[in-house]
């Protein structure tokens, strides 16, 4: 069996997901044994004309990004979105919650019309994405699962249940019981409830569960001390694009 040819690309983001790949100190050599990495700007020189699997990090936020992602899609048999920015727009989407004129004015003042900008988009809103590795940064555990499945030619399974499920499986004290708020009830699992396990609230980085009941979530947040505006701000942190669709 020929080794799959893998390429890794970054768009608008912090490159923390790629760094996370370099942080697989224990598994890096095993991963490299299974694949040929043919293009990865952050770690190596060189370019390739086609690849079996393309991993894409970052959201799309400039005309150049849109051009490049089409090129990646053309050359890739399988395209995997890595991390919150690529999967759902991530934290870049917060930009989209402000009127774009206001954002540009804040930054450029009177010169705002000189500089074009696009809303930060999920990769899937421009080209077809085959699989997701969610999280900010991407969940290493999930990357390994998706990676292994692809190498074995299996379909990776994407969890649809909430972070609460994983939190309960670990019998963590509920973040609400600690007097804080938490987005775990409407956030997709797969991280093993990492943040609540270390005492921090879930910020929703892995995206919303399918068909989230956001009205009910708003009520929970308000019941636990946030005002309505702040409740939606917290929900938007990593999911502005999706929330915008639900609220408008």
């Amino acid at each position, binding site marked *: 069996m020929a080794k799959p040819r893998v390429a890794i690309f970054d768009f608008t983001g912090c490159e923390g997901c790629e760094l996370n790949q370099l942080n697989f100190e224990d598994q890096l050599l095993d991963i490299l044994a299974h694949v040929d990495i043919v293009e990865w700007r952050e770690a190596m020189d060189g370019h390739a004309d086609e690849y079996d699997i393309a991993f894409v990090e970052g959201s799309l936020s400039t005309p150049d990004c849109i051009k490049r992602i089409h090129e990646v899609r053309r050359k890739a048999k399988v395209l995997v979105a890595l991390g919150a920015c690529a999967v759902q727009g991530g934290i870049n989407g917060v930009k989209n919650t402000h009127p774009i004129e206001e954002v540009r004015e804040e930054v450029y003042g009177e010169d705002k019309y000189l500089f074009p900008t696009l809303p930060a988009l999920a990769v899937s809103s421009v080209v077809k994405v085959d699989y997701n590795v969610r999280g900010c940064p991407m969940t290493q555990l999930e990357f390994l699962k998706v990676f292994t499945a692809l190498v074995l030619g299996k379909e990776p399974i994407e*969890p649809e249940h909430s972070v609460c499920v994983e939190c309960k499986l670990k*019998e963590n004290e509920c973040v609400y*019981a*600690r007097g804080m708020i938490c987005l775990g009830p409407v956030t997709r699992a797969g991280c093993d409830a990492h943040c609540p396990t270390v005492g921090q609230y879930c910020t929703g980085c892995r995206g919303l569960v399918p068909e989230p009941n956001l009205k*009910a979530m708003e009520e*929970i947040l308000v019941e636990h001390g946030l005002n309505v505006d702040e409740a939606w701000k917290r929900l938007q942190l990593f999911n502005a694009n999706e929330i915008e669709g639900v609220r408008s």
Partner: protein
Amino acid sequence: MVQFFLESERVTELVTHLKGQKPVFAPHRKGRKSFAFERVEDAADVVLDYPRVMHSIRKFFLPPRETLMTFDLAENDFSTADVQPSDAIFFGVHSYDLGAVHRLDYNLGKGHPEKNYITRRQGAVFVGVSFEPDAYHFCGSVGIDPMDTSGFDIFLTKLLDGYIVEALTEVGEQLLNGLDLPAHEAGKPARGNFQQHIYLPQAKLNEVMAKSYDNPVWAETAEKCVGCGTCNLVCPTCYCFNVEDTVNIQATGGTRDRHWDGCMLREFTGVAGGEVFREHLADRQRHRVFRKFKYISDETGQPWCVGCGRCTAYCTAGISIVNIVNRLVGDYEKVAVTPI
């Protein structure tokens, strides 16, 4: 049975005495305000005065996650997990949680008996403790008293300055041997009052539930519900699970694991081909409540809810199973007394 008196200060001594004979699992502080059953390392860490633990002792017989087998892809071989009897003392158990274990014994023992559960159940010794009902307990309404000693080997009834200790089985008596405790003569204290009640006993609830399939309470509850699944996962009589295979990064082998699952989760009712049987949260809420008060109850005559109050206490949306059931009772009675 003879009753002894144990001063509060001597609880540690009792735990140490038991720990010398078998491993002891008991409630410990967990986090800032919570409690959990853990194996006792230091008897002084045991907390007997607690409202509830997130997971009942079910977790020792049906663990949240367990490996069922490991497989070797190169050799095309597998081996099942080595499951051992628990052979341990579960100390400081509330009556409703033992009631829940007895219900699990029924569910997991009939049909295709659940081997791992049954094996782990062996050698389990139960030491109960009475409790003061809080804002969520309603086990009195499902026939379980806070001082109900049935099924326990030893039971501790809380007094102001200590506990009445009763050995209820031979095993219990033997475990207490060698511990010098004064006899208790004064009888038992009055039980505390419940703040939460279901208005009808199960015999009547059967009729109510039979008429409740289309009740609007399901849709109304679904409006408040985010479908996080917490109510299922903390329920001591829930036993549904999912099984997944994981292959290691070298692609040489892997494990088959199972973990708790819950009927409030959309994936749970999904089947091959993409069909989802209970698409709406309202359908899933109804199913959850019917699993506790109808489906198995029709078969056994018993409520399959033990009144621990967990599903309500841990629900961030504030959904109360007692309110749902009482609403069904109210609607049923309204219809029942309405002249034709």
